[in-house]
């Protein structure tokens, strides 16, 4: 094992500015979409009084939980004592910060009164899980910055582990808190479930790692830095385990719902008759987002090939967006169960007449705002790796640290 050397991202200026330009256009388009929505009001979006959170929230929640998951690599390296991951700790922290910034941008710019952000920062209702999350998000930023310092500065060395442990606990709280934004809602059948907290933790691991691996591969390929087979195998195995964990929680969640008569209407609709939502669930979340990537990652040949692993990451990300669209939008589209045992024949406010779901059609401004958040996250990352030493020079097998720290044998030492 050699000493790990970190270097700034050395791309030809034209190439680098080209990448920044594309990302800046994404952010700019997102900001224009925000200005349009803010000026006109939310009637220009597909969101309405039944589906009150739409596409922007799918992107925002995805970015926020992916942010927590992106820090996984740093945690595994420093908290769980796997030195092989240590060279990636800095990128892991940077990406966590960048993704959170992107997610919060989308969330804030979708508010009905975004100019009142200062009200949200000065008036707290401490019973609100949403208010807790404001602290969890801002606290996470501060902790990750400290974590990055401890990893990058020699003086920070003794603090890496304690800060890492704190960051790990904090992000578990953050992701559980984000899942509980939905899990705490007693009103809707699809929510009101404690399992959404841990399910979001598993989702964050999978989606955050998929984003991390893609960014790492792109960054290394552009700068012709090598990623060895050892690291690739580690990362793809980890991703596969996380995807399996999401599948497990998904299975338990839906089995629980489908078991009792109370929620069978919801399950029957979502799993079989929900139209686009059924497709998003089976094709997006389960098939393309979980089973196909698992097939690739565990394939004896394909699983060792970088392009295939990258393809699996892309699928996990797309599947994640589909999963969150189901969790966030489909759950609202399904009508509230106001009168069990009765059918609503007429309503002046779309109460699910005849069991019909509420309409929702995403519009361009919503999508642009969502992609603007993605653009901001990647822009921050691209600038970060260019100006500071976040990326290790090589992840080739021979320069990587050992996989796991071993316990010293006292007897052998004495001998």
């Amino acid at each position, binding site marked *: 094992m050699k000493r790990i050397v970190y270097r700034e991202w050395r791309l030809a200026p034209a190439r680098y500015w080209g990448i920044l330009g594309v990302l800046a256009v994404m952010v700019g388009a997102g900001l224009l979409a925000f200005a349009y929505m803010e000026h006109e009001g939310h009637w220009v979006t597909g969101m309405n009084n039944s589906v009150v959170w739409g596409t922007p929230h799918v992107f925002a929640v995805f970015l926020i939980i992916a942010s927590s998951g992106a820090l996984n690599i740093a945690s595994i390296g420093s908290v769980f004592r796997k030195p092989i991951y240590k060279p990636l700790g800095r990128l892991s922290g940077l990406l966590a910060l960048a993704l959170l910034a992107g997610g919060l941008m989308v969330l804030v710019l979708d*508010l009905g009164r975004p100019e009142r952000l200062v009200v949200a920062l000065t008036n707290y209702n401490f019973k609100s899980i949403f208010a807790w999350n404001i602290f969890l998000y801002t606290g996470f930023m501060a902790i990750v910055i400290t974590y990055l310092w401890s990893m990058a500065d020699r003086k920070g060395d003794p603090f890496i582990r304690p800060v890492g442990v704190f960051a790990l606990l904090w992000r578990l709280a953050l992701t559980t808190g984000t899942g509980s934004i939905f899990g705490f809602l007693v009103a809707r059948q699809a929510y009101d479930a404690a399992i959404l907290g841990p399910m979001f933790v598993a989702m964050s691991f999978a989606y955050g790692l998929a984003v991390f691996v893609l960014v790492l591969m792109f960054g290394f390929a552009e700068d012709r830095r090598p990623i060895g087979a050892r690291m690739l195998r580690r990362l793809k195995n980890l991703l596969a385990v996380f995807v399996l964990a999401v599948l497990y929680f998904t299975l338990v969640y839906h089995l629980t719902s489908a078991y009792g008569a109370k929620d069978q209407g919801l399950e029957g609709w979502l799993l079989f008759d929900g139209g686009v939502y059924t497709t998003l669930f089976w094709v997006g979340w389960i098939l393309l987002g979980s089973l196909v990537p698992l097939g690739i990652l565990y394939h004896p040949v394909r699983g060792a090939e970088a392009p295939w692993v990258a393809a699996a990451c892309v699928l996990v990300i797309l599947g994640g967006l589909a999963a969150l669209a189901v969790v966030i939008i489909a759950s609202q589209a399904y009508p509230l169960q106001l009168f069990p045992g009765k059918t609503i024949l007429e309503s002046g406010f779309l109460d699910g007449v005849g069991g019909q779901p509420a309409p929702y059609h995403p519009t361009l401004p919503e999508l642009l705002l969502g992609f603007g958040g993605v653009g901001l996250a990647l822009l921050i990352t691209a600038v970060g790796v260019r100006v500071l030493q976040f990326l290790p020079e090589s992840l080739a097998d021979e320069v990587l640290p050992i996989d796991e720290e071993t316990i010293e044998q006292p007897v052998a030492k004495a001998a």
Partner: protein
Amino acid sequence: MSERGTEIDRERRRLLGAAAGAGVALVAPAVVVRALETTPRDAPVDGRVRWGLAIDTAKCAAGCTACVDACARENGLDLQHPPEGAEPADWATQRAVWVRKVRLRDDQTGRETNLPLMCQHCEHPPCVDVCPTGASFKRADGIVMVDRHTCIGCRYCMMACPYKARSFIHEALSDQLSHVPRGKGCVESCNLCVHRRDFGLPSTACAEACAETGHGAILFGDLADPDSAISRFLASEPTRQIREDLALNTGVRYAGV
């Protein structure tokens, strides 16, 4: 100086007196009325009162929208117009509705029921629990409403409301009533005609309109007063709360559902 100069100008005195009298006569009623009006507005909301509604669905007529129309007039909801370029189908999902009529059929018996559905003014309102800024709040007299100065338009209260009672203002407003301030980007819902409470006026627009049509299906009153008409009705008739399982202790009760 002539004698005339020292004389009292009685004419002038009379004129001044009459002017003063007329002035007092003009101003006094306004002062008195103002004092009467401001008494309830200046006093803190009385926590010994709990405002609520009782709905007798047997009296609620199919096809009648008197309560919905009256609510719209009272709160300026009839002044909202679809923004230019909005599709009618989309606008129907985005316009604000504070009370709506619902017609139900029992799946087992086929019995049909009509009822108005609005904010249920819960004792433990989920919308108040989840609001990050505390804009969604419950008054001491049980009215659940939104503080439009601190609402940031996050719509989490709408996610949390089990009754879909709240509306988000999706469009810029050009017309509204001074006693019901509304604004783009905020959430709103039935507030039991809170302006009437604060001006010491009786009833709600919906209950009044329902009574005027002769149906009398909506009863407004003080749930905390055992002698109020609403309390006597609730004591004598079997009623229930919608989503009773959530144990929210709603301020709106239904008979015959």
